[in-house]
């Protein structure tokens, strides 16, 4: 195999694939990136056995072939090469080393046989549909902060993607919860998604996907089966196993009848929460909301740090209520609200509260209070 490629193109591809590769690997081949040269293309491929990213870039294949080399080392080298340089990768086959030449630099890296590289067979993916990259970003951004990292409830360690019906409209929904809060966001159901099973996309896949989306503007083709999902966009393709589990019946924790309705200015509220939370302890991050007609008072106190109080104007007509929340959770939700106003629907200090954007009903957050 022998190919030449522009440094920028190589760096971009390696950047994408190397982040899948775990820093510490007990299986040597999993530290490697698979490189394949053919015609005017080079493809790069890395996997951790659960998640696989493949990317094709323009290159000049002088001799077709393939090999594998350490992903992080290769990435570090290419990162440090001068901008605008040309890179040549050459591998003589068999047990030989991979040679990288660029300008006056020359590197020889250990290669491992391409036959040992685990291919993640996609298998048949009977369901496929297209989402715009913006829709996919929305589904991820507004839910992923709520993904649980608790390993015992591994079925919560991802985003639950499934078809549903919302006020008579068919939607594609993303839901995540860590048992303290829940985020649910929906977009119109794309064509082809109607019969899809509910799937749980693991956190690592979500994060890698989100990185790739930063550089994408077009559509993303999604294909899935009961066990795997694939996202294809431009020259990159990400294939992942799904979490084998059943997402809980989340609808049961979304209250329908909360009648204490509070509306706040999103920016003012976030800033006030941020200030007052400086006092709440690192561990609990508890903050108290005292709501009465037309006004909201945020307060926090801790034996070590003192106390803080801040009053805000707010729209509220119901009977007064005092309710505590984790300030971090409040800020996480506010960060995902784009409009000016946020609406809290509360029942009491020990029951779930619903938070929504006033102007946009597509996202819904459920937040469990703290006892304060």
């Amino acid at each position, binding site marked *: 195999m022998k190919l030449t490629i522009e440094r920028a193109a190589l760096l971009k591809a390696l950047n994408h694939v190397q982040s899948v590769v775990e820093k510490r690997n007990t299986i040597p081949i999993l530290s490697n990136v698979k490189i394949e040269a053919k015609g005017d293309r080079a493809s790069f491929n890395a996997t951790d056995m659960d998640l696989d990213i493949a990317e094709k870039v323009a290159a000049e294949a002088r001799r077709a072939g393939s090999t594998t080399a350490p992903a992080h080392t290769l990435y570090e080298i290419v990162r440090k090469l001068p901008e605008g340089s040309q890179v040549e990768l050459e591998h003589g086959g068999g047990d030989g080393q991979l040679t990288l030449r660029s300008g006056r630099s020359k590197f020889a890296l250990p290669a491992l046989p391409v036959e040992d590289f685990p291919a993640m067979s996609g298998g048949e993916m009977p369901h496929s549909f297209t989402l715009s990259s913006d829709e996919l970003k929305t589904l991820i951004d507004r839910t992923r902060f709520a993904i649980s990292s608790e390993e015992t409830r591994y079925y*919560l360690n991802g985003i639950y993607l499934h078809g549903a019906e919302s006020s008579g409209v068919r939607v594609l929904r993303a839901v995540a919860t860590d048992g*303290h809060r829940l985020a649910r966001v929906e977009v119109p159901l794309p064509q082809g998604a109607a019969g899809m099973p509910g799937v749980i996309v693991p956190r690592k896949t979500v994060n890698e996907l989100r990185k790739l989306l930063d550089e994408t503007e077009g559509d993303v083709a999604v294909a899935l089966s009961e066990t795997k999902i694939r996202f294809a966009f431009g020259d990159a393709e990400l294939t992942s196993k799904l979490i084998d*589990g059943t997402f809980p019946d989340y609808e*049961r924790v979304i209250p329908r009848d909360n009648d204490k309705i509070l509306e706040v200015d999103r920016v003012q509220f976030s800033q006030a929460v941020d200030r007052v939370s400086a006092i709440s302890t690192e*561990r609990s991050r*508890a903050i108290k909301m005292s709501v009465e007609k037309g006004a909201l008072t945020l307060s926090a106190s801790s034996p*070590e740090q003192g106390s803080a109080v801040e009053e805000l104007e707010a729209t509220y007509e119901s009977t007064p209520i005092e309710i505590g929340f984790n300030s971090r959770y409040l800020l996480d939700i506010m960060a995902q609200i784009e409009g000016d106003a946020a609406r809290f629907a509360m029942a009491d200090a*020990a029951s*779930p509260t619903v938070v929504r954007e006033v102007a946009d009903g597509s996202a819904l957050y459920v937040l469990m209070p703290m006892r304060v």
Partner: protein
Amino acid sequence: MSGAAIRKIIHVDMDAFYASVEQRDDPGLRGRPVAVGHAARRGVVAAASYEARAFGVRSAMPSVTARRLCPDLVFAPPRFGVYRDVSRQVRAILEQYTPLVEPLSLDEAYLDVTANLRALPSASATATEIRARIRAETGLTASAGISYNKFLAKLASDHRKPNGQFVVTPDRARDFLATLPVAKFHGVGPVTAARLNRLGITTGAELARQPLELLEREFGKMGRWFFAIARGEDGREVLPDRPRKSSGAETTFAEDLTDPARIEAGLAAMADEVWGWCARSESLGRTATVKIKYADFRLVTRSRTLATPIDSRALLGATALDLLRSVYPLRTGIRLVGVTLSGFASGDTGTAQLDLDLGGGADGEAARAAG
């Protein structure tokens, strides 16, 4: 002092607490030497009344020794439930003076009264009032030490015991410490005291003369602490509701045991006791430690830290048993076994995050089987 305001710390210490409670509740015991504990051959004294202390009886002393020192000693079996109730009563009084109350055990606590919520003229006046109220509401006496840090407050409470109080102001601290034996200093146990004495350091004044380098060389990190306290410096804050770091229980067998079945039964009982506390306090630890004291008083501990909290009586029992069995085969009898659980998840401080009622999710296998 570096610009920071001078703090006002009170150390409240109940006088001969357990023994005083027994004397309060049983008039027949008043004025007599009383030891709380069991007279049994291998029992120990948990607390001694002042009358008993006059004979040299001390807490943690074997009952046999205590009896020898004081043939008229009356043993009262401990009633920890009652002590806990009285302790709570005292705590409630203390908390009316400041939210910054740090209990050290059932019978002593630190208070930070810098904020002076009751607008009393001084910390001394606060201490006087607290002691009077403890006396009125529980019928028991307490002593108090008042100073500008915990170290000095605790030393001061010991100074006029029983039923007295003592103030150490910043300008009097050096003089106060100068004549005290180093063995009385916080962090100086019998072994360290002996080492200090060998270096010719027996009093606070001598300790204060030592350069920091020497103390650090001899005692490592503790050396720095000794250097500071010899100057009356202690920056430790009063931490209310100190989260408990471990929970343990141990038992001394009536005779040394070699029969695994009986040893294991004793261990299981201790594991149950620890689990009882965990369940009541909703605290789950990840580290189980088993302590074994052999007939020759040799002490060994074996511990194991699990990846997830020990969340059932069965798991705690099994882990403890595993640890015990790691010292088999026994070459000598066992005198004592204990179980301790530590490594608690960050405890809450009265606030608690409530959970969404998600019900159970399920793994794929179970779901498929059910579906």
